[in-house]
């Protein structure tokens, strides 16, 4: 049990997610149980409105769980102080950073906030981590550019670099590939794959690119209305888990190619 807990990046048991309205629980999904080993690339897929973002927000501690437990890094998520939590997991959100006036390097440096003193002074180690993040995401050439000058693809790399600078074992990304063209989608996904393979990070991201996810992910979480399936992509295909993801009369999942096709 102890060795299992050590290798597990996220363990979720009996989790119920949703929100509170006038102190009453409004659940979106419940009875969620899964465990994810560290160092894996995990893709979260599901139809719009099924609760992917809510699940990610709950797992990253931005939204309280309604019931159940989330254990991250061997400790209950709610037991972390906000600063400790910031050293355990970093996020990439769908919303763009509010200010466009920061330079790329300044924005990435903000990722060091959990570690810097109250004057935000960067130490030698901070600079090293930032430099490393710039190199991994190939954003070093952009470092003096203002964020408002960047394209969507560049910006996505920069916010991922910021999460890397935060130097956490777990990175959670909410739809990191939206608004990107096919090349940049593939680039970002390969970058995420590299982070798990070469840097030992656990990366959990939601996406609508199910076919790309199937090709790259170590583990996939398939969210459906009343069930959640967590497994390796090929096993999920074997069990036909993708077939019921969308209404069958419109889209059909082809198990041989691992793709969705439109039904005529």
């Amino acid at each position, binding site marked *: 049990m102890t060795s299992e807990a050590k290798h597990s990046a996220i363990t979720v048991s009996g989790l119920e997610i949703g929100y509170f309205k006038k102190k009453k629980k409004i659940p979106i999904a419940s009875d969620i149980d899964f465990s994810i080993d560290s160092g894996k690339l995990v893709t979260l897929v599901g139809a719009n409105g099924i609760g992917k973002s809510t699940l990610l927000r709950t797992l*990253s501690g*931005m939204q309280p769980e309604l019931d159940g437990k989330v254990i991250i890094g061997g400790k209950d998520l709610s037991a972390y102080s*906000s*600063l*400790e*939590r*910031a*050293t355990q*997991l*970093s*996020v990439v*959100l769908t*919303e763009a*950073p*509010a*200010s*466009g*006036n*920061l*330079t790329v390097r*300044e*924005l990435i440096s*903000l*990722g060091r*906030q*959990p570690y*810097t003193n*109250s*004057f*935000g002074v960067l130490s030698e180690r901070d600079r090293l981590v930032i430099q490393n993040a710039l190199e991994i995401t190939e954003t070093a050439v952009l470092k003096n550019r203002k964020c*408002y000058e960047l394209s969507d693809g560049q910006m996505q790399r920069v916010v991922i670099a*910021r999460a890397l600078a*935060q130097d956490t074992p777990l990175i959670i990304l909410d739809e990191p590939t939206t608004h990107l063209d096919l090349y940049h989608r593939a680039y970002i996904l390969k970058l995420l794959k590299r982070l798990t393979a070469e840097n030992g990070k656990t990366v959990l991201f939601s996406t609508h690119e199910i076919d790309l996810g199937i090709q790259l992910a170590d583990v996939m979480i398939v969210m459906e209305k009343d069930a959640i399936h967590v497994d390796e992509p090929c096993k999920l295909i074997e069990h036909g888990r993708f077939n019921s993801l969308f209404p069958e009369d419109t889209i059909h999942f082809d198990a041989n190619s691992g793709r969705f096709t439109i039904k005529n």
Partner: protein
Amino acid sequence: MDTHRSYTIWFVMLLAGLLFFFLINISLGSVKIPLGDVISALAGNGASKSSWEYIITDYRLPKALTAIMAGSGLAVSGLLMQTLFRNPLAGPFVLGLSSGASLGVALLILGAGAFGGFLGSLLLSQWSLVIASALGSFLVLLAVLAVTLRVKDSMAILIIGLMFGSVTAAVVAVLSYFSTAEKLQQYIFWSFGSLGNQSWSGILILALCCILGILIAFASCKSLNALLLGENYAKSMGLRIKRTTLLIILATSILAGGITAFAGPIAFVGLAVPHLTRQLFVTSNHFVLVPAVLLCGAILMLICDTVAQLPMSEETLPINAITSLIGAPVVIWLLVRKRKLLF
């Protein structure tokens, strides 16, 4: 780093500018006092005419100091609000503080008629104006803080502040409708703002407010930088949002409330100076911006006050009008030139 050197150059230039406009401000007025005499009087060596010495120490020096504090305090609180709400249109008075102060003063001046005679004139001493406007903004502050503790979204605080503003403006309008022309004029004169006629004890209290507010602003620089990414990112980096929001609102209220109490509602500086500063220092880093905004605010206010004095004449223009008359064209010019409003 090149940027650091250019920041240092700008800071040295701003400091020199502050000193220069401080001396010019004291030197010019209805009576022109030569710079040499100004410097020697400030150094405690006396001026060549004793009347000059009196004018400088009892009138112009307090006024110049008030200008510096009001300018820098309002500018810093404007910067705090723009970052907290991530809205370039925010200023120190978006929380409704100045309307609160106006309400306090309006109740005092326009309501004093109701007490009549002796009590009425007692109520209208200079200190009572200060106390009334301080009370007014303090009550609005309490209301805003109560709302901050309940509401999750900082944009909601912005709207609620604006609503407080309209409600108090409406109450002031009703009060004005029922008051005499004389009282109304008195109230309007207060709303013009005035940096002069401060007692040294008043300046001390103002200085305490400004120092406290600015210290909180300096201490919040790291959190303000995190807020540049938005609340959710800031939270994910370990920032305690509620505590930060409370601190920032507290600092703004102390600054804007204190300054409004002593100098009246001075518009525009708080909104414009952060934008002017961001054009000079092309950065959003608050460790640079806060001190820069401080200096720019002080300089702008000194210039406006110098102009408002109408050198070589007996007349003084309302400072509230001058800040907008000078500031607005500058901001328009800068924005048209740069075409982009960043924060």
